[in-house]
């Protein structure tokens, strides 16, 4: 009896594995998403789910150019205060509500006015939205805002069904209704989010899956094991240490893209009393620290060479990267000389770091390198919520943190480097830099903007309120059956033209 039962069990186990339907895509995510409302959510994995669920006004290319999605075209007024957008015809939301100018107006107003909205700062420049035609909106700005289009390429540009949003209010996330290629089916917290193909999608021809299931699998080893066993078809954020093994596996595919974000060491320069110390006061010490590091070696040792060494808020692959300030080579002698010039033979500095194994290991490498130039780095390992609280309160000397990155360069630099920047935890303040970064956000000319950022870089490269270290790379591992996947620097999974072969 028991034998029969076991046999039946094994049999059903094997049949179950082999009968997985051909057009059901299963994706392993590192975390569980938070609330599924584009106006309220804040997690990275949430955005991955939205990419299949909610279309945006505009999208980006892998090279960060803004391209049409729900808006087919747009133009700026001469003073940069009015953005006119033409909208796609024949688009409906998953609940049948038509997508039109009224819907865009309702969405932007929701982002601005919903008390729970996390998008307020992103659409702050918008004063009003006018419906100038059934499929045309005029967006009036209080001041020119070059970052707005890039905001529309992310959550602030995601269009939700006005009817559903009106009915559900702040509870919209329990049953999100958008206009993307897939519609919401069900969600089990920390277990799965299931979407099914939306037959009325305007670009349905490019969609080749009947359902998409997102499974949060936090452990990277287990995520990969699930891919190898065929329980999932693709995963995001493969551990750098597993790259070689995946690349060597003929049954698996591999894709990567340097992210828009960075990791670095934020130095307390003027954030409370703790900023008043030699490391915060004397830029030469920070320059010496930066010169003591071999960024390429850090990348090789800790990340198996999979990430991108960096020294600016934009990765070297970005069109915004200032090539006049390349990633500096390690120069211990020069670092020692700078230290001496500042009046020190050796210097003690305390750096706080999040208590996860990878960041800790990375900082230990930094610690060893800086020691050779005369820095006694004390690492203060902290749980992230405490680290964040101390950092924002100014209760730190230096802090190893990062930024997930934004499509528009402004998002990677303005709020960190301007005197009144919302997340300027360094409290670095230089009116010259303020003027340059403010000017860069008002122009819609790429070249003009780039020139301003480059000018600011000349100053910031000396002042170093943030010592940039590297740019993480998004790494995906895919089943060999999948084809057509294109990696994007924003880390999103776009399923257009992806299919099982």
């Amino acid at each position, binding site marked *: 009896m028991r034998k029969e039962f076991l046999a039946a069990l*094994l049999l059903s186990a094997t049949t179950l594995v082999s009968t997985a339907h051909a057009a059901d895509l299963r994706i392993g995510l590192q975390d569980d998403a938070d609330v599924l409302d584009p106006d309220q959510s*804040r997690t990275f994995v949430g955005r991955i789910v939205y990419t299949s669920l909610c279309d945006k006004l505009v999208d980006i290319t892998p090279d960060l150019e803004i391209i049409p999605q729900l808006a087919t075209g747009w133009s700026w007024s001469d003073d940069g205060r009015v953005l006119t957008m033409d909208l796609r015809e024949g688009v409906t939301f998953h609940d049948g509500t038509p997508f039109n100018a009224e819907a865009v107006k309702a969405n932007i107003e929701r982002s601005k006015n919903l008390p729970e909205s996390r998008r*307020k700062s992103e659409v702050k420049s918008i004063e009003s939205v006018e419906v100038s035609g059934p499929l045309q909106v005029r967006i009036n700005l209080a001041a020119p805002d070059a970052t707005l289009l890039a905001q529309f390429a992310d959550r602030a540009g995601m269009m939700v069904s006005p009817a559903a949003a009106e009915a559900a209010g702040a509870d919209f996330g329990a049953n999100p209704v958008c206009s993307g290629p897939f519609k919401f089916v069900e969600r089990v917290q920390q277990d799965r989010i299931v979407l099914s193909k939306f037959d009325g999608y305007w670009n349905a021809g490019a969609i080749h899956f009947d359902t998409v299931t997102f499974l949060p699998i936090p452990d990277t080893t287990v995520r990969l*094991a699930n891919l*190898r066993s*065929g329980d999932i078809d693709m995963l995001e954020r493969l551990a750098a240490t597993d790259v070689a093994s995946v690349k060597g596996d003929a049954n698996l595919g591999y894709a990567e893209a340097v992210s828009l974000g960075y990791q670095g060491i934020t130095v307390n320069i003027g954030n409370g009393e703790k900023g008043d110390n030699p490391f915060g006061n004397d830029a030469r010490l920070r320059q010496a620290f930066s010169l003591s590091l071999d960024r390429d070696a850090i990348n090789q040792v800790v990340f198996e060479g999979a990430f991108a060494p960096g020294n600016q808020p934009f990765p070297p692959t970005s069109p915004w990267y200032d090539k006049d300030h390349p990633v500096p080579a390690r120069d211990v002698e020069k670092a020692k000389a700078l230290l001496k010039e500042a009046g020190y033979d050796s210097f003690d500095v305390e750096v706080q770091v999040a208590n996860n194994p990878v960041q800790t290991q990375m900082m230990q490498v930094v610690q060893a390198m800086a020691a050779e130039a005369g820095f006694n780095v004390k690492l203060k390992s902290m749980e992230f919520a*405490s680290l964040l*609280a101390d950092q924002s309160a100014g209760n730190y000397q230096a802090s190893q943190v990062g930024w997930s990155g934004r499509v528009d360069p402004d998002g990677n630099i303005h709020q960190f480097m301007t005197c009144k920047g919302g997340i300027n935890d360094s409290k670095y303040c230089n009116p010259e830099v303020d003027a340059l970064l403010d000017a860069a956000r008002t122009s819609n000319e790429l070249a003009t903007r780039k020139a301003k950022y480059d000018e600011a870089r000349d100053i910031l490269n000396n002042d170093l309120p943030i010592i940039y270290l590297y740019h993480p790379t998004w790494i995906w591992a895919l089943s060999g059956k999948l084809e057509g996947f294109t990696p994007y620097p924003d880390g999103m999974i776009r399923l257009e033209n992806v299919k099982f072969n």
Partner: protein
Amino acid sequence: MLSYIARRLVIAVPTLILVSVFVFVLQKLLPGDPALVLAGEERDPEVLEFIREKYRLNDPVIYQYFHWMKAMLQGDLGISLRTQQPVATLIADKLPVTIQLAIMAMVIAFAIGIPAGILSAVHKGTAVDYIANFIALSGLSIPNFWLGIMLILLVSVQLGWLPASGYESPFTDPVKSLQTMIMPGFVLGTALAATLMRHTRSAMLGVMKADYIRTARAKGVLENAVIIKHAFRNALLPIVTLSALLFGELLAGAVLTEQIFTIPGFGKLIVDAVFTRDYAVVQGIVMCTAAGFILMNLIADVLYFLLNPRMRSSL
């Protein structure tokens, strides 16, 4: 009997109140600001203020505590700061998963631990004893996460017999549900089996020396009957107590095992909640598991009565 249970339940009330004070105070002592964690990377001041207002983070702690207690007495455990779902819903979703995993683990622990304990006691000092002890010690010493990952690599990746991770409710798909539970149940069960085995062994050794065992043997009772009917039944009492307590502990969630096998139970929920300073969820789960633990304790005592005629007569 009933009056005993009622008495115990009444005593549980001050215990739960103490637990509520502890969990509340300890949480407030944690460094870190939930609003900062929840506001997202940008930490928009407007959003920070909204969160602090909405979740009463600006109020004095005493006020926050009484507000929570008042709501809880009315059956409202609050709203998760992170996912904005009612905490009661979250608990109702996770509790069956955690109970299922706990039962699975206990079944496996019994199946291994008790026979091994009896065998090693009966064959004390022989190879059987040493082998059983070795296995028990291994079960205790091998870390759960390592065993879990090894099982996934062997059973799911190499052999392809069971799904690597995930969860399925027994009500929607009993077979798949069992498949997803076997490995995590085994990982948790082996560790418990070791504890059970050690206790069974020592209880059996104590009983085997008793006079009535010698008497039974002298009467010519078959050795198997001596062991099962005379010795094991009398050795059962401490095992029952231990099992109930182990089960109570399992209800608090098995963080590592849940994480590895991606089982959406209490363990993962509470860890995420602590890291994001999702106070309402932490409080709700701690209260719930404390109540569960008290209940299991009570059940252990009741079983004690039922199994032990001497205690029954003392009522």
